């Protein structure tokens, strides 16, 4: 009998301690009404804030560097008061610039192949354009021109470097 009393007291004490522990350590969200789980959303929102700040910083850096490049002498931006066409602006872009150079270089090569002459003026213009072309573009045009010269179908009518 006495043993049963002690068991009851111990059980009651255990339940009390369990209740207190539960109140202290349970997540706060557990006390909030049902709905979307803010407890899960909270960490994600914190991570987003950090990413946004980094992204903002990166965007600002890019904008600053682009503005500085646009203001630099000889940059691609149109001079004040000058109505520059979009095509002219695009030539300053390396990719489209190389396309324009390759096209102009091809015209020079085509003219040489049809006229059977490679002149000093052709060489000088081609040399300048070649510097704006990528390796494949250069190779493609040289593969047309050099074999024709080597077959003596196109005569080189000058004697000064650069020849290409």
């Amino acid at each position, binding site marked *: 009998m006495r043993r049963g009393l002690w068991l009851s007291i111990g059980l009651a004490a255990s339940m009390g301690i369990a209740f207190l522990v539960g109140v202290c350590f349970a997540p706060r969200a557990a006390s909030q009404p049902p709905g979307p789980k803010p407890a899960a959303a909270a960490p994600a929102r914190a991570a987003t804030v950090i990413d946004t700040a980094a992204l903002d910083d990166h965007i600002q850096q890019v904008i600053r560097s682009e503005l500085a490049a646009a203001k630099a002498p000889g940059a691609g931006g149109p001079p004040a008061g000058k109505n520059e066409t979009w095509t002219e602006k695009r030539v300053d872009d390396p990719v489209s610039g190389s396309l324009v150079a390759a096209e102009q270089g091809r015209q020079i090569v085509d003219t040489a192949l049809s006229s059977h002459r490679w002149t000093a003026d052709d060489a000088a213009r081609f040399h300048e354009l*070649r*510097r704006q*072309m*990528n*390796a494949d573009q*250069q190779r493609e045009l*040289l*593969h047309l*021109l*050099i*074999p024709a*010269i*080597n*077959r*003596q179908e196109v*005569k*080189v009518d000058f*004697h000064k*470097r*650069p*020849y*290409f």
Partner: protein
Amino acid sequence: MKKTLIALGAVALVIGSVWAGEHVVVEANVDVANNHAFGALGSARASNDSVADIGCDIDTTNAGTSIFCGAIDATNNQTMFCTSSGADYIRAAAAINGDSYINFVPDPNTGDCTELDVSNWAGYAPKQ
């Protein structure tokens, strides 16, 4: 005995002329039939005409480094070129100097160099 001495003397004369500082003259030659060009830079430079020329350029752009080898044969008024961006060819071209003899072979279809020989023997006339 006398014939042997004469023969030995002739051989000594030839060897002496070659190895005692005689300059071998090989002007810029373009051989279209055999698809190659050759010559010594010094000889081309010393040529009486202002046309003969031979050599290689090493050309570096944003797209990379290439060589352009060329020869202008003044006698036949013929020209031949080859180009390459291969590291071995660039090294070979970099070894050319004013005393060099070079021989190059272009691919007939592309103009790419398929051979570039560089000789830096003392016998070739130095560029002056």
